[in-house]
Structure formats: C-alpha cells, structure tokens
C-alpha cells in the first residue's frame, strides 16, 4: 500500500497535478489500504442500483441569496482550447496533452467569504512546511479567500483519528471520508446523519453552479452514494484498475512463446522460475510474487481471476439474484491455475507473507517476472518514478509486456475498474445547517478541482514560480521547497485525471490508447452503490478468512475441494446475509 501512495506522490510530482491523479488512479484500487488492512476495492458507500445516467434532481435548496454570495465562480474548462490535446475517446479515459498549455484562468473571484475552514484530510506525505514560512499555503489562502487549516492525518492513523473526531463532535468544516482506509465506522456516522445530504446541491441545475464539479462523470457520483444520497464530493481517480505486466526480455531470452493461452502462460511463469532469465547462474528468479490479501487477490491472484473473467465481487443473474465471485466456475479455475503454478514452483518462496511493496520491489529487482500494478506504472520507461522506470534503472534491458486478460484467457478476460474516485469530502451536519456556508465550502472544493491547463491547476500542482518550481524548456519542475510546501495541503480534491507527461510527450498517445483498451474490458463492482450492514460489519473478517482459505489451497495444504467448505463457511459467517441485503438493495 505504501507503494500506492508512493507512486501517487511521485507521479504527482513528475507529471502535472492532473496527470498524476490519473496515473495513481490506476494504482490505487489495487493496493489495499495498508498491508494489513482490508483490500482496497474501496466500496465506500451504498445506495440504490447503479443509477441511471442522470441523477434525480430535487429542487435546489432555497434559492441562492445573491446578496451574500460573492460574485464569480468557475468559468468552465479552458482545456478545450489547449494545443496538443488528445481528447478522451470514451468516458473514463483521460484526456491527453502533449505539451504544456497556455494557461487560462478558470475561476473568477474568490470562493471563500473570509472565515476559517478546517479540513480533515488523509496524508501520504510528510507534513507541509508551516504556514508562516510556506508561501504556497499563504497564496492558497489568498486565492481561496479563507484561512485554510488542514488536519493532516497520516494514512495509517486515519481511521483512529476519524473515529476520535466523530466521537468528539465539532467536526471540521470539510471531512474527507474514505471508509476503505481502515475507517469502516464512518458508515455508521453517515447512517446516523453526521454529514449533510448534498444531493440537492450537487445534482441537476444546482450542480451547474460548480463548473468544475459539474464536469465529473456520472459514475463518479453514483459510485460514492450512500443510501441513495450524495454525502460527499468525490476526489477524481483514473478508472483503470490494476493490470499485469510480464518481462518480455525474459521470454525472449528463454525462447518462449507469448502467452496466448492459459496453458502457455502457466508454462511461461514456471519457466521464469526454473530457467535462468537473468543469466546469474543462480536459482534466483520466480514467476509470481504475493497472491493477495483477500478473496479477490489484487495481486498475482487477480491476474488469474481476470484472465478467467471472474466477476468483480458479485455477478447479477438474470433472475435478479447475486452470485459471489467465489461461487463461480471462473474463480475455481483461477484458484486451480494458481494451485498448479505453486506446485510447479512458479511462486516466490516468500509469496504468502509478502507485502505489496516487497512484491513490487521483487519485480523491479528482477526476482519475479510478472506483477500486477497500476496502469500508470507501465505507460513508458521514461516516466520517472514509475515501476517501469525503476526497473530500467536496475536492468537497462528490461522490457515489459502487458498481460492483457483478453490475450491469454480468450475473449472472456476482464480488468477491475476503480470507482473513479478515491474518497469523498463531506460537510458535517452541524456546518450544513447554514446553506450559504455549504455553498461556500462547495465553491472551495470546486476551486480545488481545476481543469487541466488552467492557471489554478498550475498553481495547485506547481505552486509559485521561482519559489516552488522552475520552468525548464517550458516544463515546470517542482523543486524541493515546492514539494515540502505543497505536501498534502489540498489532498482532498483534484481535477479530473489527464495524461500529461512533460518528460515523455510521445508516451501520451500510447498511454491513452492503453487506458482505453483496458477500460473496454473493465468491470465494476455492482455493489459499490449498494448498502449492506452485514457487509460493512463482516467484510474485514471475511476477507481474512478468504485469504486464509485461498492460501491453504494454493499452497497445496488443502485440496481444491476445500474450496466448497470455504464457500459454505463464508455463507454461514455473513456471506449469505450480505447477499440477501445486496439483493434487496438492488431490487430497490
């Protein structure tokens, strides 16, 4: 998990703000919150069925009082004009940009009214430089028109701090929610009405007051609904989930065929372990690293499940009932595939206890030959800090080839999408009593989601020229001061993901194509917008149980038939109840 952030952070720094988010997006879903915590597959909220494309639009609350509302607001996207733009070919695929655009202002006036805004935020980076020495922070406050007071909370402690803040009352004005980050009790707070229902503010005509937020695709809003209500403003993330890549140079060296079928893939992964693709003369390479943390895997297990087209947690049957992935034939074939790989020695000896970071390290260091990771890591070996880049540092001959599920498993392969967001920012109920305050806070979030190529986007990503970044050859590069000034000051929000790779503009078009191809076979978890109390209460426990059962079978301690017992136990320990609750929610 740490890795995910890491990547995120790096990408952020190396690519533009927006570019980053898109890339990370790719990584985020795959990486569980923390090595020990539940897998990410953030399934934050729940609500009725995968909503129609347009949201229900209750009348906006009380007509705006123009007298109090400051003038101005976001002006819409200037990106349409940008030179070198590669427009997104489909919803969910980021726009690409091959050159630094001419910056345009996208926001008129100041969103804030001059008070103080406290912000509870998760943080993946060291704290920013204190305000009195932090020019970027000072400038941010000037632009927002408020005193910006983030409560920077390290990711591992995010859940505890969240619980303490909620118990203590007096919640901060903006509260970043992400129950997937060890913070499942947030659901309870949402259920008890701790946060303002923003549905009326963020649907239909009312949403148009927030030009940037109104460009968010529908899936972003739908996937974070809680009991059919919009509780928070989602932070954009790229839609593509994790995808597997393997060492093409190893395949060549060992004289193998590209994996066109699962059998060939099996032989290839075993050959990575039995052969000597690095030419070290020692037995120090393997096919795969760790297999994951729960039923779904996320790591190398996910490779197998995706190849066989296993559903993303749940499959809806024609009669409206649900089948969990572990009950499907595809899942069983996946487990069997992994079991045989293990028996043939394709797995790294530490695979059961590996963390995500260790698995990634093993891939970069040339110990394992295939690995599943955020798409952004594989776009191009020229993008600093990506897995591909680091691998080339360790081995200049390294070649990575996408193991697209459709290639090996026939036409049935899938990849798992992200929700399109990573957490969402809510406004506590007490704060929400004042409609003008709600609108002010939403304007601020709107300001923090600037479109690519806007002057605001540039500021939020790169800070102040000469202080936080230098422009070399037209490309801004954040300097060390900029990195420590920006930190996670405005982590809670970002613009929509874009592909902008200043160091490797040629990589943009292929990257966009790759993202599109993968999105075509992308599947969603249909339970994202559904609410199940049992799921929330039991998920962590059942995930652990799933991992344990799966480990026993894959490592050969138990036969494949033990899967039936595991499924039975899963049902009795809450799986059946969860299914019922989701089915009811689905029926609406």
């Amino acid at each position, binding site marked *: 998990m740490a890795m995910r952030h890491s990547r995120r952070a790096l990408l952020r720094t190396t690519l533009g703000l927006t570019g980053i988010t898109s890339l990370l997006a790719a990584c985020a879903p795959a990486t569980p919150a923390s090595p020990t915590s539940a897998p990410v597959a953030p399934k934050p909220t729940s609500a009725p069925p995968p909503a129609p494309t347009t949201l229900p639009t209750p009348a906006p609350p009380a007509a705006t009082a123009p007298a109090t509302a400051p003038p101005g607001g976001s002006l819409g996207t200037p990106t349409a004009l940008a030179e070198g733009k590669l427009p997104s070919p489909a919803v969910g695929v980021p726009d690409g940009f091959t050159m630094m655009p001419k910056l345009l202002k996208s926001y008129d006036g100041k969103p804030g009214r001059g008070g103080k805004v406290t912000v509870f935020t998760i943080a993946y980076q*060291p704290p920013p430089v204190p305000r009195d020495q932090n020019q970027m922070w000072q400038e941010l406050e000037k632009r927002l028109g408020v005193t910006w007071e983030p409560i920077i909370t390290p990711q591992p402690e995010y859940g505890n701090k969240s619980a303490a803040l909620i118990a203590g009352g007096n919640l901060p004005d903006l509260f970043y929610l992400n129950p997937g980050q060890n913070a499942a009790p947030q659901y309870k707070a949402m259920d008890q009405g701790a946060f303002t229902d923003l549905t009326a503010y963020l649907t239909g005509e009312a949403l148009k007051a927030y030009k940037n937020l109104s460009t968010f695709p529908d899936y972003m809003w739908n996937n974070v609904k809680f009991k059919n209500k919009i509780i928070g403003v989602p932070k954009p993330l790229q839609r593509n989930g994790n995808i597997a890549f393997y060492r093409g140079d190893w395949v060549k060296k060992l004289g193998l065929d590209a994996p066109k079928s699962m059998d060939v893939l099996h032989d290839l992964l075993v050959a990575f372990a039995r052969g000597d693709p690095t030419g070290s003369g020692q037995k120090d390479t393997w096919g795969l690293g760790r297999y994951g943390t729960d039923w779904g895997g996320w790591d190398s297990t996910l490779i197998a499940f995706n190849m066989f087209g296993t559903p993303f947690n749940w499959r809806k049957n024609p009669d409206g009932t649900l089948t969990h992935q572990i009950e499907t034939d595809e899942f069983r074939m996946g487990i069997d595939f992994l079991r045989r790989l293990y028996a043939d020695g394709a797995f790294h000896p530490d695979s059961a206890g590996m963390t995500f970071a260790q698995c990634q390290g093993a891939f970069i260091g040339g110990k394992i030959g295939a690995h599943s990771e955020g798409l952004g890591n594989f776009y191009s070996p020229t993008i600093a800090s990506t897995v591909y880049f680091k691998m080339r540092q360790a081995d200049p001959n390294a070649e990575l080839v996408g193991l697209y599920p459709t290639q090996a498993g026939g036409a049935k392969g899938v990849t798992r999408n992200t929700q399109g967001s990573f957490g969402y920012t809510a406004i506590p109920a007490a704060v929400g009593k004042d409609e003008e305050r709600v609108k002010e806070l939403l304007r601020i979030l709107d300001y923090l989601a600037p479109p690519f190529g806007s002057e605001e986007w540039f500021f939020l990503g790169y800070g102040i020229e000469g202080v936080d970044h230098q422009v070399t050859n037209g490309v801004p590069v954040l300097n060390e001061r900029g990195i420590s000034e920006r930190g996670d000051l405005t982590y809670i929000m970002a613009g929509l993901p874009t592909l902008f790779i200043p160091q490797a503009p040629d990589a943009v078009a292929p990257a966009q194509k790759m993202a599109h191809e993968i999105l075509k076979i992308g599947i969603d978890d249909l339970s994202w917008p559904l609410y199940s109390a049992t799921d929330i209460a039991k998920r962590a426990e059942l995930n652990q149980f799933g991992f344990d059962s799966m480990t026993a079978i894959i490592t050969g301690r138990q036969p494949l038939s033990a899967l039936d017992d595991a499924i039975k136990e899963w049902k009795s320990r809450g799986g059946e109840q969860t299914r019922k609750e989701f089915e009811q929610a689905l029926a609406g």
Partner: protein
Amino acid sequence: MATALERSTTVTVTSGRPAWMEPPGPPEQVAKTLFLVAIAVVMLFPFVYVVAISFSSAKDVLAGGLILWPKNPSLDAYQAILRGGIVARALLVSTGLAVFGTAAKMVATVALAYGLSKRAVPGAKLVLFLVLGTLLFRPGLIPSYLLVKNLGLIDTYQSLILPGLISAFYLVILRNFFMNIPQELIEAARLDGGSDWQVLWHIVLPLSKAVLAVIALFYGVDIWNAFFNAVLYLNDASMWPVQLVLRQYVLQGSAMASAITLDPNQPPPPAQTLQMAIVVVATLPILVVYPFLQRYFTRGVLSGAIKA
C-alpha cells in the same frame, strides 16, 4: 592422605576465596569470550545492517543481498530526509518534549512516590490502589480523546505529556526504593531540623540517583518514541514530533523517494535506504544519551533485586 588434605587446605587458604570465585582456566575463558562475542554479534548485526543500508547507494540496495558495509557510500537518503527543514523542526520539538516532559514526569512521580513511601500518610493506601488501577484499566482511544478535548488541550504540547504524567509502574519502583532507604538516615536529618522537602532533596534524592536516572531515561525514551498521541491530539502538523514525521517517511518510503527526486533522470534513493536512514536518525539521539547514563543504568535496574 593427610598430606593431600593438608595440601588442599593450604591451597584454599592461600587463595583466600571460595572455589566458585577462583578465576576460570583458559579454556573456560575462551568459551565464555566466544559465547559473549557471539551474543554481541547477534545484537549488533541488525544495527550494522541498518546503518550500512542507510549509507549505501541505490544501485547496491536494489541489487539485493546482504550489505554489511556500504560498497559505494552515499548520503542521498540522509539528504533526502533532512531537506526542507521539516525533520529538523520536528527534532527540535521532540527534544523539547523529551526534556520538559521528562522533567515534569519526574517531579510528579518523585513527589507522589515519596508521599506514598511514608506509611503514616492518611489515605496513602487508597491513592496507591487508585494508581495501581491504571495498570489494569486503561482508557480507550475515544474516552482519552474526549478527556483531552474537554480539558482544552487539543493542539497543545501538554496533551502529549499530561495524560499519563505518572507511570504507575515507575511509581511503584520508585516508592519501593524510597522505602528501602534506611529510616535512621531520615530520622537523623529530622533531628537536625530538616523539613520533609529538605529530607527529600538532601537525603533521599541523592541516595536514589541510580534509580532516578533509569526512570528518567525510560520516561525520556517513552516520550521520544511516542507518536500516536500526537496524531490524535495535534491537528496542527507543524507541532508534530519527530517520530510522527519520520513515520510518514518510513511508511511512505517510496512516496517520499519520488517526492524528493528533483532531477527526473536521477533515480530517487530506494525506499529501503530511506527507511534505514530514518531508523538511524530516530535512534541516534537516544544512543547518544545512553552512555552518559549507563553507569547509573546497571545499578538502577538491579535496585531491589537483592536485599541487603
């Protein structure tokens, strides 16, 4: 027969000490030395490894394998951590907390321990009972947070010191030590007209230097290592102590690594190197203090182990 006995007796007499105190023969010496060296190596090994990795170049670390001496020494990891001044500031905060926090804790613990060491103090039993209760029953996260919040201590350094100002465990050790100080000394001071405070200051504390040093060290280390209360009680990140800041670097090692890459063509130090450098930075201050306290340390830890 008689001669033999005589001889053996003579030997005992000349050496002047019982058999178990005879110096061991060379083979025993060698065995003991080897054994102790082996233990020392086992103890030092991880530390050497940590230090070596922290000074190694990225390439060596990525190549894997056991590194016990940096082949291509590099300061990249340390430079990365110390850039931006955030860690330097946090070190200052932690040092301040450790100094003032330890002082406050020592004053409170000594005062209570001395009071409770007097049998005649009314209610001492009850107070001791309550104090010991904290060993068994700990407040949960939420109650602690609510208490600190309602005391208005959120975003103050006091919030990191006042909760748990007195450790029941150290208090009991100290109280027992005070109780073992010969009453005659205290009575003598009394006869000379010393007040309770004077007795404490001039008689009891000087006699307790060893145990005080140890408890102060423990308190200091506890404060130095604490990070969780800071997460909970400090909303203002500029007040974070060093462990919390460094933890961010450790956990997000690679994130950091990427964040500090200025030259995109220059690979960042690998996460592992950074983490090891952080371990060194976080441990160093304690290691520096330790030798100065060491002579008290052995005595203090053993206090009460043997009844005179």
